[in-house]
């Protein structure tokens, strides 16, 4: 696999506060990465450093194996950080023209990219007249101008209404489907879960996990159960070493597995023991549950 960005022992201190602590990870071509972390966990700072706007205290990072300087590498990167920043007095088309000039790409792509984000009919309107959702979409168009090798998105749906969020997500999915590498920083986990194949989890500037989403915690999933005779069920579950933690919430028993077991086997087992279930669901932890487990444990 071809590394696009590798970060080595990156540290950033703001006075006494350490925003990023000894962080290392690699972004490979073709994957969709999520950077997860609560507010203030150092996501934006990390992105700021690799995007040349924040100076690192120590450590280093390399774009495309370090073959080009950072600002030349950034010409092959599309990035949106927090809020869309454009010249308010220029129209959308003029703003994009400026970006073309900076990146050294041809102006011909402007209309095409505006069409991708559905802004073609507003291209000659001033940026200051745009709604937040439109501004964010323009930012995506701008990031796509150079057909980037990697698209970096920092909280792309922050502050948008449901339609706006939906539109942005759809655009991201479409771009990911084309095989563009994406790095998405967010604290909205379902957002990450829907599009990412890999995650990097940060807390207080430290890396807790990096790797594939489904391998984030070693878990065999859990059963959600309901039955008439709850006490009997609980007694059995507690005596079976295959089950670890057991929780009861609103008549629903949640039993976490220590060993792999499928629903059919379990149902059969219950029936043999004379326990008739009225509700049986096998689930894996959602990204949110995994994330909370990971950040609470340490």
């Amino acid at each position, binding site marked *: 696999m071809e590394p696009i960005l590798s970060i080595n022992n990156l540290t950033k201190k703001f006075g006494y506060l350490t925003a990023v602590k000894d962080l290392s990870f690699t972004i490979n071509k073709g994957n969709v990465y999520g950077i997860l972390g609560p507010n203030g966990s150092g996501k934006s700072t990390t992105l700021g450093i690799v995007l*040349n706007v924040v100076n690192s205290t120590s450590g280093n990072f390399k774009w495309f194996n370090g073959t080009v300087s*950072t600002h030349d590498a950034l*010409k092959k*990167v599309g*990035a949106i950080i927090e809020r869309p920043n454009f010249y308010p007095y220029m129209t959308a088309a003029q703003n994009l023209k400026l970006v073309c000039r*900076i990146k050294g790409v041809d102006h011909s792509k402007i209309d095409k990219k505006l069409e991708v984000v559905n802004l073609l009919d507003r291209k000659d309107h001033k940026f200051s007249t745009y709604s937040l959702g439109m501004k964010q979409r323009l930012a995506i168009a701008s990031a796509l101008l150079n057909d980037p090798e990697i698209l970096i998105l920092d909280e792309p749906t922050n502050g948008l209404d449901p339609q706006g969020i939906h539109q942005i997500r759809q655009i991201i999915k479409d771009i990911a489907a084309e095989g563009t590498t994406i790095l998405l920083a967010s604290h909205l986990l379902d957002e990450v879960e829907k599009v990412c194949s890999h995650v990097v989890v940060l807390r207080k500037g430290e890396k807790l996990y990096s790797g594939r989403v489904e391998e984030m915690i070693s878990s065999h999933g859990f059963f959600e159960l309901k039955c008439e005779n709850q006490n009997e069920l609980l007694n059995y579950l507690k005596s079976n070493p295959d089950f670890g933690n057991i929780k009861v919430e609103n008549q629903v028993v949640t039993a976490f597995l220590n060993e792999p077991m499928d629903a059919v086997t379990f149902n059969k087992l219950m029936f043999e023991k004379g326990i008739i279930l009225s509700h049986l669901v096998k689930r894996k932890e959602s990204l949110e549950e995994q994330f909370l487990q990971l950040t609470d444990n340490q």
Partner: protein
Amino acid sequence: MLRLLNLELQKLLLNRTSKILIFVSFILPFTVLILSSIKINFFGFFTLELGELGIFNFPIIWHITTFFASQFKFFFAIVVVSMIGNEYSNKTLKQNLIDGLSKKEFILSKFYTIIFFSLVATLLISIASFFIGLYYSSYTEASIIIRETNFLLAYFVKLIGFFSLCLFFGMLVKRSAFALAFLFILYILEWVIFGLITWQANMDIAEKIQNFFPLKSMYNLIDQPIQRVMMTKFPDKSELMYDYAVHWHEITIVLCWTSIFIFLSYKLLKKRDL
């Protein structure tokens, strides 16, 4: 270089405020120059014709026009300061860097623009002075016309120096209004230091040191021409004599300040987290 200049020109010329200010900074000195060169008749009581005073004679015209035109540099100074302030307040500086502009290129694009406008201003003023001179001057021999054209060079250097100072203040305080206030503070500060040195030592030393201060050194490039005009009217008054010529050491001092300001602006941006 052309790419960076184009970039900055697009930012400036699409902004209505800076477009107007740039226009004014070019047109106003021009208008004043042309108005002063025509004959004004005050309702038949008397006619005012500045040309009669001999101020439009070669070579003194170079001195006079550059001196008065440089008083209008403040308009473009506002543009320079706001072109930094706006980048900070719109956060477009951050976006520019993310899009792949290096910090060095960012400063250079501003500096090239400063050079470009200084050059255009110098060219305009030299063309205008040349034609007004041709019309009014009693002497139009080539050798006399060319004499003292180094005032044009001084004018050019003076503009670049002053705008670089504005650029630096803009980078330092990030806000246009504060940057302009800093200019004023620097002006006062130079005179306060001058006063202190005069008080501690004497006026002579103080003046010599003051000549190295940024604003004073820029002012020194083109000394006021009024006294010179008086000299031509009263040639026998020797106490009016003063040194009004453009000196190489004066140009060198201003160029040094220019490079210091540009270098510091770059260092400042390099060090800053955006």
